[in-house]
């Protein structure tokens, strides 16, 4: 009975945490955008603009072309729910059990969401959707091993495969060679995973170069709002993971997340988008760093 109550309590705490992250996510994306705008000599939109956008899309009619299957409507929901479930599995800052949230489950629940998005991008049979889907999967194929290696490096370091366990045992100033290399590599993979420059450009209107945005071209209204919201949540989750498990600084997590959000904005401004086929070299570099980190342990 005790254990059931404990489980229930943990579950409620996890859900509360996921919902809190969901509420905060648009603001973090807003902050990244604001940083970029300021660095480009622009005033930029308010950091709350993403909330207004979601509200706007939510109030708009959702157009679905008659040439699509049920999958088209399903995919954004699956993407949203899988991301939310993944958010439940993050190390719980309300406290809770350390054996919850296995890292392998975490990575592949996110992959499930991406799979559905990639498949649905081809559903409407537009040229852009197919291009976006194929590029997303091409990049995912390289990002996934890198993320897994980063996780492995952490597993070796902390001796736990649960995210909470890792976070509990992570000594905040891990300034070993392995720690620093893992930190850099995870940051690179995070940019790729979240469709940021230099891999993808979240702000572009150029259909031909887009990756993630290409897949969303056919979506409108609430479905579009779900996709954007989930993507924003995903960015926040990666920033959290980066702050809690990789960033070797002795600061409160909230500060570390804000700091890494600013870092994403700065890196995006300093760089330009690379050639599509160079992305694998970029990710191979991240992978190599991680291999070195694993060996160094």
């Amino acid at each position, binding site marked *: 009975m005790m254990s059931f109550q404990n489980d229930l309590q943990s579950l409620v705490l996890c859900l509360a945490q996921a919902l809190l992250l969901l509420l905060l996510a648009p603001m973090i994306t807003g902050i990244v955008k604001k940083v970029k705008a300021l660095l*480009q000599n622009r005033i930029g939109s308010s950091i709350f603009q993403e909330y207004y956008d979601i509200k706007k899309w939510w109030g708009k009619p959702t157009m679905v072309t008659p040439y699509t299957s049920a999958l088209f409507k399903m995919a954004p929901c699956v993407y949203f729910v899988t991301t939310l479930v993944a958010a439940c599995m993050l190390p719980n800052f309300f406290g809770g059990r350390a054996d919850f949230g296995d890292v392998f489950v975490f990575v592949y629940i996110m992959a499930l969401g991406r799979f559905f998005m990639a498949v649905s991008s081809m559903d409407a049979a537009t040229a852009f959707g197919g291009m976006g889907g194929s590029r997303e999967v091409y990049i995912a194929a390289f990002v996934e091993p890198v993320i897994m290696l980063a996780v492995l490096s952490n597993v070796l370091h902390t001796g736990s495969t649960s995210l909470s366990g890792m976070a509990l045992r992570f000594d905040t100033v891990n300034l070993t060679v392995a720690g620093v290399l893992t930190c850099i590599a995870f940051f690179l993979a995070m940019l790729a995973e979240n469709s940021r420059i230099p891999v993808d450009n979240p702000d572009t209107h*150029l259909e031909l*170069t887009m990756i993630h945005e290409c897949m969303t071209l056919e979506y409108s209204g609430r479905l579009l709002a779900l996709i954007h919201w989930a993507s924003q949540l995903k960015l926040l989750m990666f920033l959290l993971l980066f702050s809690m498990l990789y960033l070797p600084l002795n600061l409160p997590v909230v500060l570390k997340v804000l700091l890494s959000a600013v870092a994403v904005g700065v890196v995006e401004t*300093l*760089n*330009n*988008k690379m*050639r599509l086929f*160079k992305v694998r070299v970029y990710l191979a570099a991240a992978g190599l760093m991680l291999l070195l980190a694993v060996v160094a342990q």
Partner: protein
Amino acid sequence: MLVKPENLRGAANICSDGGRRPLAAMFGADETQRGGGLAIYCLFYNAQKRDLDVLKADYPSARPRNYPSLTPLLPAAAWYERELHDMFGFIPEGHPDLRPLVLHESFPEGFHPLRKEVAVDCQCHGHREYEMMTSSGEGLFEVPVGPIHAGIIEPGHFRFSQAGEAMLQLDAKLFFTHRGLEKALEGKTPLEAMTIIERICGACSVANTLSFCQAVEKLSEAKVPYRAWLIRTLALEMERLYNHVGDTGNICAGVGFSPVISMGARMKEYLQQLNELIAGNRFLRGLIIPGGVTMDVEEKQLEEILNVLKEVEGVYADMVHIMWEQANFVNRIRTTGIVRESTAFDLAMVGVGARASGMARDSRKDMGFGIYDEFDFDVVTETTGDVEARIKVRVGEVRESLKIVRQVISKLRRNAEVELAVDLGQLRTLEGSWGISESPRGDNIHWLMLDAEGRIDRSFIRSASYPNWPALTVAVQGDIIPDFPLINKSFELCYACIDR
């Protein structure tokens, strides 16, 4: 030179002299109202004589209207002949691709708007086929883009034939917003025409106006005052500066390189505000008129121009430095979108596109219009013909333009003339005349013929984008489709210039 239509190809072969005198333009004219028939004009650059050679084929009666196509001999004629086919109903025999160019699906067959019997305000509806170039085979697919684009740009439909990410072939369907300006100009006096001429294109308003004014001035004995030419040169170079500076930044938008985009936009704004100071508007309109200029540039303005240019020069140098320091950026632009010199030669490309492919063609030197011979400047060329070369040519031309502007200003300070425009008097009628000037994208050529009452009988406008558009479809072959926006921006071709 006047020839019979059946001899046009032979005559064009002689005129082009193995390509040493490239085809500059080709257009038709309906001269039936003044006792003639239909005519085809071909213009060739003659850099030796610093002149355009005019070749005319005359049809005494309205039919038949066929002639041997020049395209197999001069690939540069391909678009001109398609336009002749649309606008006048000429039939170039042996043309490899006689699809409509200007008149899309919604125009009826047999409708040739530039013929005199068609009224300027006529309404027409029709339906005909317009087939895009496609390809088929295992694993090949097509990507249609436009005519409505995600950005705020003009309409154009692009059809890519793809093998994965690689572009096999690109077909561009343009002319969606053709305005019929050449038709609208007919019956107007040269002065009345100025409002339209200045608004053909925003980016090369000065160049179009200057070409047209020169065509008008050739029909008069009067000589344009020297000070007017100084101010005209100043305006033309200011136009080049604001375009090149803005375009350099804009090319970087193709790769999402934001600091450079912002710097380019900021400097373009400074320069356009300077334009406003000179002419009262940001596009330097209303300044140049047939016979001279309307406004003087005073010492206070000259001082301000020099100050702003000095600042812009510094920021531009920083911006170029940032670009070349960024290895990731250089990696994107090098070997991307190559136009070989032979291609540029065949298509008779002009402007930045031609100079980036190793052709030292610049009408400021070749044609020596106005007073350009007095100034010390170089024609900037590159040989690689890729995006990097086109950026480098622009960077070099900004430097040369600044040089010219400073020379113009020192001459303006020493020049005490008060007369800014001359009365052109009675213009010679029924005589073909042309004007040329170097816009930021290459030379703009205007052809003008006045009828017996001194009103425009035929005005032909060939902006620099016209010969360069077909080169874009060649440049992209073999590159990957995500690089298309970058390649496209490096040419910075104008839709309005061809939708005239």
